[in-house]
């Protein structure tokens, strides 16, 4: 009889004894994988959204007076002393007026009798865009307002701060759900294997008398933990995929899609979650074997 067919025969025998605990464990592992990967999926999509928003982010520094051409290089250097930026654009009153007229569109006639001088001089700064810069944007803004001649800085503070907090909160949730995944996978699998071993205690003792090797006794138990991880991770990730498709089909209207271009977990991330689940469940079975199975 080949070792593999023996292993599977033994697994079938084990599942006859303890199928209820195996099903419960499978369900728990699947649910843990689903919860973790669900939050991870949101986190990844939010990161993508923030990166895209970062590309469009700009800070406008309103000035008391125009920066003369001769001092513009020095002004730029003062800005870049704090943080790397992609682009700095000096905007005259006339250019600002022109932009305002464009923005108002059909209502631009309200500006007809006005002189551009009511608008302040400004500098438009496009910072290097990444999440880290987003979280540091407030410091950058405080620095810019302290520059000589600067009156006010605008960049959509409230919205960006809230978004930053949301991403931080998501990061914490991802870490917590990761911890949940670790705990449930290791402990539930370990507990199930323990039940299997306890239900077979008498048989294991006789097997030892009959000369069963470590490989004979431990092999099926390790494979049982591995399979619980395999099926748990597969069903968890498949459930996430179907959930994702359902959300995409039911909740993503055109406006929503413009803001968040939803995408599923990249293959590398899915594979990592899958492998980690396998590893955790196998570790759970190894812990039980070491603790409860003295060959």
């Amino acid at each position, binding site marked *: 009889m080949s070792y593999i067919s023996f292993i599977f025969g033994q697994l079938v025998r084990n599942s006859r004894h303890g199928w209820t605990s195996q099903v419960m464990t499978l369900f728990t592992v699947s649910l843990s994988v689903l919860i973790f990967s669900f939050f991870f999926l949101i986190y990844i999509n939010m990161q993508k959204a923030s990166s895209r928003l970062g590309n469009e982010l700009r800070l406008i520094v309103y000035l008391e007076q125009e920066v003369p051409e001769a001092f513009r290089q020095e002004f730029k250097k003062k800005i870049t002393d704090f943080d790397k930026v992609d682009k700095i654009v000096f905007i005259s009153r006339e250019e600002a007026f022109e932009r305002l007229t464009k923005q108002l569109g059909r209502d631009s006639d309200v500006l007809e009798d006005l002189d551009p001088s009511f608008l302040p001089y400004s500098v438009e700064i496009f910072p290097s865009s990444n999440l880290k810069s987003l979280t540091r944007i407030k410091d950058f803004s405080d620095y810019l307002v302290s520059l000589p001649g600067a009156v006010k800085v605008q960049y959509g503070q409230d919205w960006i701060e809230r978004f930053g907090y949301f991403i931080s909160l998501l990061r914490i949730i991802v870490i917590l759900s990761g911890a949940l995944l670790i705990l449930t996978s290791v402990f539930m699998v370990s507990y199930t294997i323990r039940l299997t071993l306890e239900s077979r205690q008498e*048989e294991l003792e006789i097997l030892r008398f009959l*000369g*069963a090797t470590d490989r004979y006794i431990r092999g099926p138990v390790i494979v049982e933990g591995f399979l619980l991880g395999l099926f748990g991770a597969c069903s968890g990730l498949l459930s996430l995929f179907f959930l994702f498709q359902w959300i995409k089909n039911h909740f993503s209207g055109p406006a929503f899609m413009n803001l968040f271009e939803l995408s599923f977990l990249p293959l590398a991330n899915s594979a990592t979650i899958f492998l980690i689940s396998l590893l955790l469940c196998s570790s759970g079975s190894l812990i039980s074997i070491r603790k409860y199975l003295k060959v």
Partner: protein
Amino acid sequence: MTSDIASPIDTSLIDIVKVTKTYPPDIMALDDVSMSVGHGEMVFLTGVSGAGKTTLLKLLCFLERPTMGLIEMNKKDISKLSGHDLQKMRQHIGVAYQDFRLLPKQTVYQNIALAMEVRYETPKDIKQRVLELLANLGLADKIHTPTGKLSRGEQQRVSIARACANKPPLILADEPTGNLDPAATALVMNLLKRLNEDGTTIIIATHDQSIYQKSDHRLINLENGKLQEIIKVNFDL
């Protein structure tokens, strides 16, 4: 006094040298025992209850370790064998325990097959061997009966069948006929004799005079943990 009983066969399978076994607090189960058993020998180990027969068998199948002394199997000191080597060696020793050690919820077939499964024998070979053993021991009709539902005599025969399943080079049988009627005793002894004729070394611990009285094989008597004397040596090998 050191009792030393050598095997009349030159090549010994088992050598026991000055073995003592004590259990806490100070119960002396075996006292300075030396003996050897040759390849293909059948030996009867006799003595009253508590004489040390079961302890000696337990030492031979590595369920216990001697407190002092040396046990060699095929000239290998078994105390120096690694866990894996011991497991492998156990596969080559068939043991019929006094308390049977069967799985009561599993069938007769499953209990016997277990001994062959640990050696990864094919299902076909297992089936063939189990059927053959059950026919020899008069248990063919009980093949699918859980052993918990058998009489003690039937359980004893299942235990013997399991010990013989792998055709091991050494069989240790502890009171193999203790619960059997004369007819079943004859079946068991015939099976053991046939295996012995095929070259299997067999050590039988027993009270049952009927199984060794007419036998030509060596008889070793234990008394209070000591080897006393060879009551009968009438080899016809």
